[in-house]
Each structure stands twice: as structure tokens, then as C-alpha cells.
């Protein structure tokens, strides 16, 4: 019987030849990723209470990204616990201050098509860009995985999002997601698998595909998936398994859109679903432009911003927190970072930074910001009175130049 990509991935992890949506199965976990906030500081005391050890340290990846740079006693302690715990637990795959977990994980070769993986963070569906079934879980559920190597799953239905045609210059994966979240709402994904397909998806780079799958979280999916192909192989620089849905596999819904018609999108405060085309916001003044986060400051995102900022000066304060150290170094080598700095960007650490609202940098009272991050819930990035607009790196950069929300299509190099 025809199976979707999600069904095939789940069936493999459950040791079955096929699975049916809504069936409950127990899956073997190939990879468990945690960060400093959801990981060691929550796991260590609970593992000790159970007197248990982790089932397979070679399948665990720990990445520090939330409380970096540490700025007070509490954040230093959280980071210290992570550093100590990986030694005690025998976890070799530890990336300390190397960037945001969702970007570092594939960058260091931990993801492969066909894997079944969990992450201690809601943006874990990012891994689905590699045709791996990956989703976010909380710390107690992660404890269960760490002890047993297994997790229960209600086999998801698949919602297919098919994008035909090609994105116009100045329009990106972020615009696709803001459009979809605006169209279907924060619960549009119904905690099912969302599969992105079609010519416009096939044409995207891996980092842009990661942005699609990443924001499946805001679309309310359990995961976001993209079939593996030549672009996946080229990114991973090794032979890969090809995973895709069977033709004719049953879908919960199949939505088709013309990528050519998509305009840059902006989500107004205080919800990623509060989306309209950028042209509706032209008079909106901004104080600050932020290019950061797993969804908005990868090398590709920095390049988008640079293509708008090249040879120009920002009017608004512009903060850039590259999503990983490697991406920052690559951006520096190729001159992208120089363009950003020449435009007036202030460089922040390779961490979750303002996006998570956990760190030292927070938005002040009544600040109006435009941000390439994933969420603009009230108070998330700082003061409850702050107003956060979400947009693509192109649009954030164009807005930084104008000091108000601006359409990047007039500026893209």
C-alpha cells in the first residue's frame, strides 16, 4: 500500500513494514539532541533519582546555545552543568558555544535521511529538511528516551504543501512559512506531519529547506518533512538513502500554491499568524532590526541580508547574531559579514540570543522591532510592551535601511 514519507520513516523506526495514521507505535530513537536549557540541567537530577544511565551515549548530542554568553550566576551554572554532565555521561558529541542546535546538528553531520530523531526543543522539526523524522519533546519525555531509547508516537497523517513555480527575487523560505501560518493558523498543522514538495521546494538550498521545516512548529505540525534528493546529498557530502512519499499515498490535505505569486510577508505583533504582505506595513516605523535565530541567521540568511545592505547604511539599530560559528566564519571569508558590518550591524554571539528571550539582550519597553526569528508572542523577546514584527532577512535588512518596514524587492542586488 502507498505510504507517505512520514509513514515510511515511522514504520522503519517502529520495526514494521507499514503503519496506519492514528495507530500508536513505539519507535526506536536513532538520535536524541538536547541543549543547555532543556537538557543536562533537567536530565541530570532525574537520571540520578532513577539511578539510571543513558541508553546509548553514542546517540546523544548536546549543544549549548540558550544561555550563551552566560551573563550571571544562574546562566553560568546552567552551562557548567552541561559541560560536567557530558563528561560524566560519556557523551562525545558535545558542541559548546558553536551555534544554535538546529543548525549545528546537520552542520556536523549528525543528520541523515531515514533517521528517527527527537530534540529537546520545539524547533526540532528542522531536521525534517533532511528527510529525517525529527520532532521536539519536553525534558521529562526526553528523560524517558534517555533511559529506554524509545518513544511512543501516534502515527501522523500527512498534510502536503506543494509549491509550484519559483520564488521571485527578494522572496524566501521565511516568506513561505509566514504566509502559510497566516493562512492556516498556529494550529493549522494539527500536530500531523507537514510535507513540503513541488518545484519551488526542490529548488531551495538545504538551509532554506531547514527554515521551512523549522517553522512547521509555528504552523502546529509535529514535524515538517522534505524528500531527500541531490541537494541533500551535496550538502551532506556523502551517499544517502532516497526517502520520499509513494505516489498516491493518502493525505489529510493537499494544498497547492504558486510560488511566483508570493510577496514578502510580515507578521505583526503578537502572533506569527498575524501575517500580511509587506506592502501593508510601509509606514510602520521601527527602532531595531534583528537578524538572528536558527530560522533567520544561517549563512544563507546572512547572504540575503547582505544582498540588500551592500554599500548602504542602516538607519535603525541593526543587530546580527549568526546562527553558528561556522556560518559566521564562512560569511567572514566570503565578505558577507563585512557587508553587514559596513552597513552598521552590531555582531552578537552565535546563540539563540534575543529570540528565546533567555539572555542578557532583551527588547526594552515600547521598542518596535523587526526580526528574522520565529515567534513574536507578547513579551517573548523582552518587555511586554515591545512590538515585534517577523519577516525574512531580506525584509529585515531593507527595513533597517529605511528605519521603517520596507519592501526588499526594490533593493535586492
Amino acid at each position, binding site marked *: 500500500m502507498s505510504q507517505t514519507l512520514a509513514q515510511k520513516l515511522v514504520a522503519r523506526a517502529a520495526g514494521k513494514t507499514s503503519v496506519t495514521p492514528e495507530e500508536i507505535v513505539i519507535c526506536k530513537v536513532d538520535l536524541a539532541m538536547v541543549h543547555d536549557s532543556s537538557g543536562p540541567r*533537567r536530565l541530570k537530577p532525574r537520571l540520578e533519582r*532513577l539511578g*539510571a544511565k543513558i541508553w546509548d551515549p553514542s546517540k546523544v548530542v548536546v549543544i549549548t546555545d540558550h544561555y550563551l554568553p552566560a551573563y*550571571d550566576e544562574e546562566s553560568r551554572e546552567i552551562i557548567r552543568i552541561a559541560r560536567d554532565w557530558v563528561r560524566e555521561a560519556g557523551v562525545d558529541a558535545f558542541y559548546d558555544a558553536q551555534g544554535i542546535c538546529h543548525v549545528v546538528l546537520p552542520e556536523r553531520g549528525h543528520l541523515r535521511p531515514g533517521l528517527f530523531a527527537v530534540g*529537546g526543543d520545539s524547533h526540532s522539526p528542522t531536521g525534517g529538511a533532511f528527510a529525517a523524522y525529527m520532532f521536539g519533546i519536553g525534558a*521529562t519525555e526526553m528523560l524517558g528516551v534517555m533511559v529506554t531509547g524509545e518513544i511512543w508516537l501516534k502515527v501522523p497523517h500527512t498534510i502536503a504543501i506543494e509549491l509550484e513555480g519559483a520564488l521571485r527575487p527578494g522572496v524566501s523560505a521565511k516568506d513561505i512559512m509566514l504566509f502559510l501560518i497566516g493562512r492556516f493558523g498556529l*494550529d493549522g498543522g494539527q500536530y500531523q506531519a507537514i510535507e513540503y514538495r513541488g518545484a519551488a521546494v526542490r529548488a531551495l538550498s538545504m538551509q532554506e529547506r531547514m527554515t521551512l521545516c523549522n517553522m512547521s512548529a509555528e504552523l502546529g505540525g509535529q514535524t515538517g518533512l522534505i524528500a531527500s534528493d541531490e541537494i541533500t546529498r551535496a550538502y551532506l557530502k556523502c551517499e544517502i538513502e532516497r526517502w520520499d512519499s509513494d505516489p498516491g499515498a493518502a493525505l489529510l490535505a493537499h494544498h497547492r500554491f504558486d510560488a511566483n505569486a508570493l510577496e514578502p510577508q510580515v507578521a505583526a505583533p503578537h502572533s506569527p499568524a498575524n501575517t500580511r504582505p509587506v506592502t501593508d506595513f510601509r509606514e510602520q516605523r521601527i527602532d531595531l532590526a534583528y537578524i538572528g535565530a536558527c530560522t533567520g541567521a544561517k549563512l544563507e540568511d546572512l547572504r540575503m541580508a547582505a544582498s540588500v545592505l551592500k554599500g548602504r547604511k542602516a538607519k535603525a539599530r541593526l543587530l546580527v547574531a549568526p546562527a553558528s560559528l561556522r556560518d559566521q566564519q564562512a560569511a567572514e571569508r566570503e565578505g558577507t559579514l563585512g557587508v553587514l558590518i559596513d552597513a552598521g550591524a552590531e555582531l552578537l554571539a552565535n546563540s539563540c540570543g534575543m529570540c528565546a528571550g533567555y539572555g542578557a539582550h532583551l527588547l526594552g519597553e515600547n521598542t518596535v522591532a523587526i526580526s528574522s526569528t520565529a*515567534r513574536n508572542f507578547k513579551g517573548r523577546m523582552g518587555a511586554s510592551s515591545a512590538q515585534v514584527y517577523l519577516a525574512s532577512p531580506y525584509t529585515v535588512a531593507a527595513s533597517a535601511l529605511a528605519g521603517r518596514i520596507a519592501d526588499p524587492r526594490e533593493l535586492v542586488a
Partner: protein
Amino acid sequence: MKAWVFGDNLDTDAIAPGRYMKFGIDEIARHCLEGVDPCFAADVQPGDALVAGRNLGAGSSREQAPEALKHRGVAVLIAESFAGLFYRNAINLGLPAVVCAQAKRIRPGNELAVDLVGGRVRNLTTGESLACEPIPPFLMTLIRDGGLLPHLQKRLAPRASPDPEQGK
């Protein structure tokens, strides 16, 4: 139990604000929902119910969101629908989460009685009886054990201590 009523898409940043996430659950829970209802954390009583519309718990994987509610004494969550990740976290912490299509009929301060297994919310204030989805048996086991951690403790216990049946 008294109902505390909220709207659609009540998010985890509102329930467990990020700036307090570095602290323990006592401190996070003190600020639970402060941006939405500044009285909630101080006034909610042990055994009360949190009632919401669609997509309760949208956003983060931080389990301190349901944990903070439980810590303040919330005994049950009732919503038209839940964000899947938040739902799993609540159950794993032993906090029952009930899907009730008519949750919006419940008003702030209504007195409720909830039958988790039978799938029914009785509104003692209005006399209404609202159908809800029964919690599946295997999740009820987790809730009865007090959450995944005590459940694992039970499961692992025979390994930790010698089995009295062994050798007989």
C-alpha cells in the same frame, strides 16, 4: 474546582516567561501567566481548572509551562484543542489534559467536575454537562502513576532491587 478561563493560542511564553526560565520552578510559577492575567499566579487555588480555547500551549517545548501550572495547583487542563508538544508534556508530568469541543461554554469562576475516563465535564454552576474526549487508557496509566518519571521509577524498580519471585 473553579475554572480559570483563557482564549485561543495561549502560548508557552505567556505561561512560563523566558526571562524566568533560568530559575527553578518556584520562581517560574510565581510569574505564570503574569502578562495575561496578573492575578492568576497569586489567586489560583489547588484543585482549580485551567480552561482555554484552541491550541492551548502553542510554542515552546519547555515543560516548565505545564509544570508551572501544576505547581500553582492547577489540577486539570480543559481546552478545545492542545498544541501537541504541550499536551505530551502535561501528561508526562501527570497533569491531565482534556479535549473538550465545547470548552468555550465554560465561564470564569464556574465550578466544574471532570470525569477523565468517561470523558465528561460537568458544570456545577450552570448544570450543563459537556462531552469531551476520554483520555486513552495508556495515557491514563501515566497520569495515575503521577507522570512519566514515577512511571519509569516503577518500571525500573525490579531491576534496581532483587525480585522476590526469583529463584522460586
